[in-house]
C-alpha cells in the first residue's frame, strides 16, 4: 500500500514539476521546478530497491541544475519574467505532434512488452553499488571508458578556453591594471 501511495504521489509531483518547467516564463520557477522534478524522480529508484542509483540521481542532478542556475544568473534578471520572441507556428506544430506520438508510445509500451525481463535483477547477497560496479566494469567497460575520455576532452577544452591569464588575480589588481588587461585580451594583440 505504501509503495502505491508513494508511487502515485511522486508520479504526480514529478509531472507537475516538469509541467511548470515547460510552461512558465519565469527563469527561476523553471530551474527550481526542474531541480525538484529531478530529485522526485529519485523516489522511483528508491521504490524499486535501487538505492545507489537513486542517490546518484540526486547527486548528479543537484549539481547539474546548480550549474544551470549559474547560467540563469548571468543571462537573466531572475526576478522578472522572460519575454520570448514570437515563435514559428510550424515548429510548434511539428514539436507538438512529436510529443503527442511520444506520449502515446510511452503509454502503449507496457502493453506491448509484457514479457519484459530484467537482465540484471537485484540479488539478495550482493549490494546495490557492487552490482552496478560489476556490470559497469565487465559488460559496459568500453562505453564507460569512452564516456570517461569524452569527459576528459570536455574538461581539457574548458580549461584551455577559460584558462587564459589564469595566473593573474583580478581581485589583487588596481583599476588601471585591469583596464590594461582588457586590451591584452584582444585576440590579435594577445597572440593566442
Amino acid at each position, binding site marked *: 500500500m505504501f509503495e502505491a501511495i508513494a508511487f502515485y504521489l511522486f508520479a504526480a509531483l514529478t509531472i507537475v514539476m516538469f509541467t511548470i518547467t515547460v510552461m512558465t516564463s519565469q527563469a527561476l520557477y523553471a530551474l527550481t521546478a526542474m531541480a525538484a522534478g529531478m530529485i522526485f524522480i529519485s523516489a522511483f529508484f528508491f521504490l524499486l530497491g535501487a*538505492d*545507489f542509483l537513486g542517490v546518484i540521481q540526486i*547527486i548528479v542532478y*543537484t549539481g547539474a541544475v*546548480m550549474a544551470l542556475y*549559474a547560467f540563469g*544568473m548571468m543571462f537573466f534578471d*531572475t*526576478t522578472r519574467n522572460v519575454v520570448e520572441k514570437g515563435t514559428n507556428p510550424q515548429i510548434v506544430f511539428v514539436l507538438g505532434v512529436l510529443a503527442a506520438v511520444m506520449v502515446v508510445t510511452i503509454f502503449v509500451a507496457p502493453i506491448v512488452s509484457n514479457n519484459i525481463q530484467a537482465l540484471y535483477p537485484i540479488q539478495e547477497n550482493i549490494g546495490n*553499488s557492487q552490482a552496478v560496479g560489476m556490470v559497469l566494469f565487465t559488460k559496459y567497460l568500453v562505453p564507460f571508458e569512452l564516456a570517461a575520455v569524452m569527459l576528459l576532452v570536455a574538461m581539457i577544452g574548458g580549461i584551455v578556453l577559460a584558462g587564459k591569464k589564469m595566473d593573474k588575480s583580478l581581485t589583487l589588481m588596481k583599476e588601471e591594471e585591469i583596464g590594461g588587461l582588457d586590451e591584452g585580451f584582444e585576440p590579435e594583440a594577445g597572440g593566442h
Partner: protein
Amino acid sequence: MDVAFIIETIAKIVVILLIFSALAGLGTYFERKVLAFMQRRLGPMHVGPFGLLQVAADGIKLFTKEDIIPQNVVKPIFKIAPIITAATAFMASAAIPFWPQFTVFGYTVHPIVADINVGILYVLAIMAIGLYGPLLGGMASANKWSLISAARSAAIFISYEVITGLALLAPLMMVGSLSLIDINNYQAGGITHWIVWSQPVAFVLFWIAAFAETGRTPFHLVANDHEIIDGFGTEYSGMRWGMFFIGEYANMFFISFVISIVFLGGFGDGTIAGAIQLLLKVSFFFFFFLWTRAAWPDIRPDQLMWLCWKVLMPIAVLNVVGTGIVMMF
C-alpha cells in the same frame, strides 16, 4: 507492513526532530558563549541562569516577528527557500546512526531511521540539496547582496562537492561498503583501528570541505557580514530567517556525526562507553566549528576557489590513487 515497525520509525523521527531542533537552538547559545569567552566578553548572561534562557527569548522573538515579504521578490521561491535548508538538514539525518543499538524492556532499538546500504552517499547528497536554500533565497530576493551571495553559494557547492566525494572515496575503498554502520563496525577494534590513522589526508580534506559545506568561517562567504550584509538572509525576517539558522546548526551537528563515524571510530564496539565517546567526538567537532570562527578571518572567494581546485583536489586525487596502489599490492 509491520505496525510496530511503523510506530517505531515515526517515534524515532519525532525524537530526532525534537532533539536536534532543540540542539540547534542551544547551538546558538554555545556559539555566543564560546565566542565571548575567546574574545574576553561575557556573552548572553541576563536571561535566566548563565543566560541559558536567551535561546527561548530569541525563539519567542523570531516566532512573533512580522513575516515580511518584500515587494519585488519572487514570492513562492522566496518563501520556500528557508524550508529547503531546514528540511533537508533533518532529512539527511535519516541514515546516520546516532547511538549503538540498545535494548529497552526486551525490545531492541536501532537508533537509525533507515539503514540503507548507501548511507553515507545519501547523507551527503541530501546535505548538498540544503545549499539550494541560500541559492534560491539569494536569487529570489530582489537585492544585489543576496544575488552575490547566491552566486557564491553555487560556486562553493560545485567546487567543494568534488573535494568531499574524492576525500571520502579513499576510506570507502578500504571499508568496501557505503553503509555508515558497516564503516563503524570496520573500526570496532579500538583506537588503533580508526581510519584516521590510515587515511590522515582524507580526514583533513573532508574536514576542510565540511567547513565549506556548512558555510562556516573561514569559508563563511555566503553571508559575509562586512562585504554583503547578511547575503541571502538580508531580505528575510522572523522565522523564515530563523529556519536558515536551524538548518545551518543542524547541519553542523550532522556533519560532526559523519566525521566522527567515518574517521574516528564512531561508537566503536557498541558499548555505553563507545556511545559516550561518540558524543564527546561530536562535541569536539562542533566546538571546533566555533573555535575557528573566533580565531580565523574569512578568506576571499578567489582564495577559496584557488584552495579547492589547485591545492585540495590534486591532493585528493593523489590520495585516491595512492590508496588504490597500496590496496592492490
